[in-house]
């Protein structure tokens, strides 16, 4: 009887933790696992390909989300500013493209071309990577720093505090985080929240 109860408890824990996956994922301080995802140019991209990088600005984003679209120019600007300083942008499209055909590889290729993306725009085929990160929506930023232990999560959240109007931004959360990393200072705001489009699975 005791054994059965114990077993039930384990089953309960497994089931409950399964339900909790939405809020799971990386916390600031965790080591992010690498991935191997297809880029819009057909190549496979991993974080380990970037020997010279000091870290990464990983952004889950999509074609179809108006919030993502609103941030496209600002994502390009982030890459142009910080790739030369060792923090390139890596964009990942996490949506299920059967649910959201406007985010399929061909549509991603067209968008990357028309906007002149300077960074890889990867598809999370099979949707294995975004749950590891704990991303729930697009756009969502994870800033990673290369350490001897791996790529450590330093910041999770929004790009800045105004999704509607780039010229009305008061605080550039993502930029501030990278600047702190570059100058070896602690990051003041390590987590922020913003409205976004739920990831379609």
């Amino acid at each position, binding site marked *: 009887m005791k054994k059965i109860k114990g077993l039930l408890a384990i089953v309960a824990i497994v089931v409950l933790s399964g339900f909790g996956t*939405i*809020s799971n994922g990386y916390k600031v301080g965790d080591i992010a696992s690498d991935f191997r995802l297809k880029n819009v140019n057909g190549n496979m991209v991993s974080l380990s390909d970037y020997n010279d990088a000091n870290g990464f600005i990983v952004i889950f984003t999509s074609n179809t*989300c*108006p919030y993502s679209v*609103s941030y496209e120019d600002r994502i390009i600007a982030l890459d142009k500013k910080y790739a030369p300083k060792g923090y390139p942008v890596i964009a990942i499209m996490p949506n299920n493209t059967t649910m*959201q055909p406007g985010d399929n590889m061909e549509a991603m290729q067209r968008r990357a071309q028309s906007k002149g993306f300077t960074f890889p725009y990867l598809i999370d085929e099979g949707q294995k990577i975004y749950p590891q990160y704990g991303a*729930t*929506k697009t756009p969502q930023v994870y800033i990673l720093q290369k350490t001897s232990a791996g790529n450590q999560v330093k910041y999770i*959240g*929004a790009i800045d*505090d*105004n*999704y*509607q*109007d780039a010229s*009305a931004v*008061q605080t550039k*959360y993502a930029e501030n985080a990278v600047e702190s990393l570059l100058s070896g200072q602690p990051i003041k705001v390590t987590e*922020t*929240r*913003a*409205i*976004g*489009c*739920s*990831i*379609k699975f």
Partner: protein
Amino acid sequence: MRISGLLLLILLASCKNETNGNQDVETNEEIEITMLPDLEVYDFEGLKPLLKTASDSVYVINFWATWCAPCIKEMPYFEAINKNYKDKKVVVTLVSLDFPKKYDSHLKPFIRDNNIKSRVVVLNDADSNTWIPEIHPDWSGAIPATLIYNKHKRAFYEQPFTYKELETELQKFLN
């Protein structure tokens, strides 16, 4: 200010001139068909009173936008709850997060064309990092999202609903 008023008058006058050639009946019909609803637009401070109550009613607050496909899919269930539970003191409010530039082109036509009966309000407050955790600490910011509350308790759901699921959650507030 005076100048813009004058400009408006001139514009209105010129519009009138253009339509002078049309038949009156036709013009009236056109106005009726294209009439768009007014919007209640709030910043977070303005929305706050809608997020708590001292009354005996149960409030269902759904965060949505016209561009959010799963939000549009579940909207009929919120409309149905609003209709079916009206006499049980359940109030549904649909909080749109559409961008201001889409109010006239998307939001207002959507409300009109779908004959939305629940109260629709618009939250226009760009500083979402401040207000998202105030609405609920567990909310990552993804929509659709729904808050159900009465004067005793509240629950938050960052997920889409079926009618049955929504009704089940609502029942917990009615017993």
